[in-house]
Each structure stands twice: as C-alpha cells, then as structure tokens.
C-alpha cells in the first residue's frame, strides 16, 4: 500500500474511533494537509482494494471493517467506546482491534432473544449459541452488504 493510501487508511480509523462515525474525504484531507482530490482518489483506491466499503455511487464510507457507519444488529462495547460491527465476525473484530475485552450485544435472528457475548482477557466467556455463515468464502465480496 502506498504512503498516502496508508496514511488515509489510518486516519479513517483514527477519526472513526474518535467520533463514532467515519470522516468525509474533506475531513481526511484537512486532517492530513492534503488536497481533497487526493483524499477522494485515495478513498476510491482503498475501496477498490476492499480495504473500505463506500456507499454505492458515493465517497461516503459505509464500512471500514470491522466498523460499520450504519446501525447494525451488532453493537460492541469496548473500553474505547461503543461501535457498530458489520456482522458477528466483525463485532468480535472490533473487540480484538481495540484490545482484549469487550461485549457484543446482538440477538438471535430466529427468535429475537438478546445475546450478550463477553470477551475478557482475550477469552470468550462461555455462552450458549452458534455462528452461521450463509455465503461461501469465495463469494463474500460479490455482495459484501449481504455477507
């Protein structure tokens, strides 16, 4: 990854974690002291490389995995703050990205029963439940929102 793309990538995460929402390309340009066009080009390249996901037809960040800009069924509470994860994998990823402890709050899609999955000291506390992945790995990026 080139220097500017990595700088933009790191700034996106830094701002997303600080503000609870992703930065616009103009925000990122101002923070890094680069031209808005350079930031927008970097956003597009990062999306092409599947590092971030933009809302279709826009430069608005939808996902900077494991974080989601839109509310999801996976709310993650960490010592750093609360964030939306894109799925159960990403929700655990938010915990891991920020340390070794946190709680994922979701619910069973079938019955709606709330589920709290707690990670402490890098270990998942025993909880009744399973994970289900409908889409085989080689098809994940054909429709990442569904995946």
């Amino acid at each position, binding site marked *: 990854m080139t220097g500017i793309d990595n700088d933009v990538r790191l700034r996106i995460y830094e701002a997303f974690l600080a503000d609870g929402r992703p930065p616009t390309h103009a925000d990122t340009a101002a923070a890094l002291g680069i031209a808005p066009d350079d930031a927008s080009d970097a956003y597009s390249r990062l999306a092409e490389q599947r590092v971030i996901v933009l809302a279709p037809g826009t430069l608005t960040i939808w996902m900077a995995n*494991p974080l989601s800009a839109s509310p999801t069924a996976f709310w993650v509470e960490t010592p750093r703050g609360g964030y939306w994860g894109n799925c159960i*994998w990403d929700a655990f*990823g938010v915990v*891991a990205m920020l340390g070794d402890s946190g709680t994922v709050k979701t619910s069973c899609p*079938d019955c709606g029963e709330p589920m709290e999955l707690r990670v402490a000291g890098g270990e998942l506390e025993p*909880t009744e439940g399973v994970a*289900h992945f409908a889409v085989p790995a080689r098809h994940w990026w054909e429709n990442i929102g569904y995946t």
Partner: protein
Amino acid sequence: MLAFRSEAHVERWCAQRRIEHGEVFSLEQAWGLGRDWYADRLSPDWRRRTPEEAESIFAALGLTGDFWRLS
C-alpha cells in the same frame, strides 16, 4: 455472519426465509476469526492478506473444507 442461540434456530430461520444453509460453527471459532483477522488492523504495517494466508487463519481455527476456500 450471524449469531444464533443454537443450530436448531439456524435451521428454522434458513427454512422460513429460504436462505441457503451455509456453515455453522462455534462462537469460540467466531471470536477466533475476529481476533486473528482484525487484531493488527490499526498497525501502520497492516496489509491485505493473500488468499493463502486467509485460508491458513481459517484452518488454524478448524474452519476447513470447500466453504472456506478462497484460492
């Protein structure tokens, strides 16, 4: 990827919604995916994993078979 209370709940949900039944695995394995995939995401040295590297992570967690193949 979603979390369910049990495999029976997965089967009922897939049948009712006509969603293809994919892979069911433990929450511990899902936590392992989150940990092993994302722990380094904020590192300046992070880069996308190759398909082979990704498959190695899956295999180390016991997630093997055609469903998990990327290459």
